[in-house]
């Protein structure tokens, strides 16, 4: 890859990392507040994995940019203004109720499986290797969230109503998963999968699975913002909270 392509791939990876980081942040808010103790454990694990994956992508981006991979992740997370994050609004939204958090995680995980499968075939070997590793961990997430979607979808009238309401609220944002990531258009074929194609496969899969759980994807609703430079109103507060301690003393080793 030439320098321009490396920069484009770094941009792509930072967007992926931002999604993982922000979703992990939202998941971590459940720690200590989950509906059953077993889920305090499981959801904390999802948060750990997502944030760990974010770090892997930031490190790989650092390698492509030729900067210090030991410092780059923390610089990106703790010292970047909210406007410079490239996360989707889907992951920024507040955690909501258990139905909302679980369904968001399911929709995201299902998409990730498609994307990671594509990335694991990348001609950029360091990317392919990490994608294989991350996909194996994400597979456990998907099993876990699928089991929950089924139970809540087919549980009680209330649980089904809450799941359907969450699905209706999430859908416009989830459609953003299909938009091209930053840098994607500038990369030669074979480095990353095409987001639009992943989206079509994802939509078929989740429509069928949700139907089995008694849930219906709403029709073509208005598309929420998919441009990753535009954030929801929740993002500034989230980033301010995340960076609060680190910014007390930017010179310190925390």
């Amino acid at each position, binding site marked *: 890859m030439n320098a321009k392509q490396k920069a484009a791939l770094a941009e792509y990876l930072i967007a992926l990392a931002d999604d993982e980081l922000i979703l992990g942040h939202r998941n971590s808010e459940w720690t200590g507040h989950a509906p059953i103790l077993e889920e305090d454990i499981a959801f904390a694990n999802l948060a750990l994995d997502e*944030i760990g994956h974010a770090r892997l992508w930031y490190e790989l981006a650092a390698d492509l940019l030729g900067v210090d991979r030991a410092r780059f992740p923390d610089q990106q997370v703790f010292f970047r203004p909210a406007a410079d994050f490239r996360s989707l609004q889907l992951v920024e939204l507040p955690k909501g109720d258990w139905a909302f958090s679980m369904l968001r995680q399911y929709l995201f995980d299902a998409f990730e499986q498609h994307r990671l499968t594509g990335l694991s075939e990348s001609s950029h070997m360091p990317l392919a290797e990490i994608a294989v590793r991350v996909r194996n961990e994400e597979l456990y997430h998907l099993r876990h969230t699928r089991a929950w979607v089924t139970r809540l979808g087919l549980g009680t009238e209330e649980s089904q109503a809450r799941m359907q309401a969450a699905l209706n609220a999430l859908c416009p944002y989830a459609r953003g998963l299909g938009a091209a990531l930053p840098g994607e258009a500038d990369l030669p074929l074979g480095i990353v999968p095409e987001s639009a194609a992943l989206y079509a496969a994802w939509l078929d899969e989740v429509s069928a699975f949700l139907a089995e759980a008694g849930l219906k994807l709403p029709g073509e609703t208005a598309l929420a913002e998919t441009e990753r430079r535009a954030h929801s109103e929740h993002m500034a507060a989230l980033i301010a909270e995340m960076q609060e301690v680190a910014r007390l003393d930017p010179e*310190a080793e925390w």
Partner: protein
Amino acid sequence: MYGADVEQIAIELSEEPEKLADFEARIARGEKIEPGDWMPAEYRRQLIRMISQHAHSEVVGMLPEGAWITRAPSLRRKLILIAKVQDEAGHGQYLYHAAETLGATREEMLEALLSGKAKYSSIFNYHTTTWADNGAIGWLVDGAAILNQTMLARCSYGPYSRAMVRICMEENFHRKQGQEMIIRYSQGTPTQRAMVQDAITRWWWPTLMMFGPHDADSPNSGLLIRWGIKTRTNDQLRQEFVNQLAPDLQACGISIPDPDLRYDEASGNWLFGVIDWDEFWRVIKGDGPANAERMAARQQAHDDGRWVREALSAYAAKNQIQ
């Protein structure tokens, strides 16, 4: 469920003298008592009280540190903190299971917590006001807990003892990460040094209170020691803690908020000042800085999770029928 009065215990213990003698002989030989074995009713009650109280402490203990997960100042610290709070949930889970082997149910135990009937460690009724409090909790609070738990790992009840062995291993990591944070910050920038000093100043005395009342005011201690549940007293454990921590904190240049603290050559102990027992009893009885908040957070999670638990039960029931 949480202990009987002295006369009641005396009556119970006189009812089956041979079984009691056999039970006490087993304990004297260092054998573990297992779930199906005969045991005095008071032994069972005391264990359910202690184990459930311990489980509740793990569960409530997720809150003060959990509040800092979203604000941890580096990815490394964030991952460590999430894993630590997750471990606490895991400890709660093993301990509830250990109490279940004595016939208590998790629902009953949670109900006792939420109604205020069951206690949890008073330390979690203090606020975590800065990030460095997470370091103080790791080094001081977890360090104190480990002393108590190392003793309990040798206790006479098998399931509790085994749960403690595993918990102590994980708690040692918790203590080490706290110690590492405090030492590093004590050598860090002025902001970090001030933060660490402030955290130790606030957490020192509440940590000493964690060991419980003086031996003379500890009503359950006699029986607990006789039956091999506890092997050391509150005051012995407290002294060992001060002996460990005082020189280590001072070596970091941190001052301990006790003008009477001094090393006594003759006994080899670090002598310390008088604990504010009024504060201790106030916090135990529900009037500490964060008691109401902690219980409100647990109650909220319980209430918000009700529909989820109902859905799980309903799904399980439907699938059994099919």
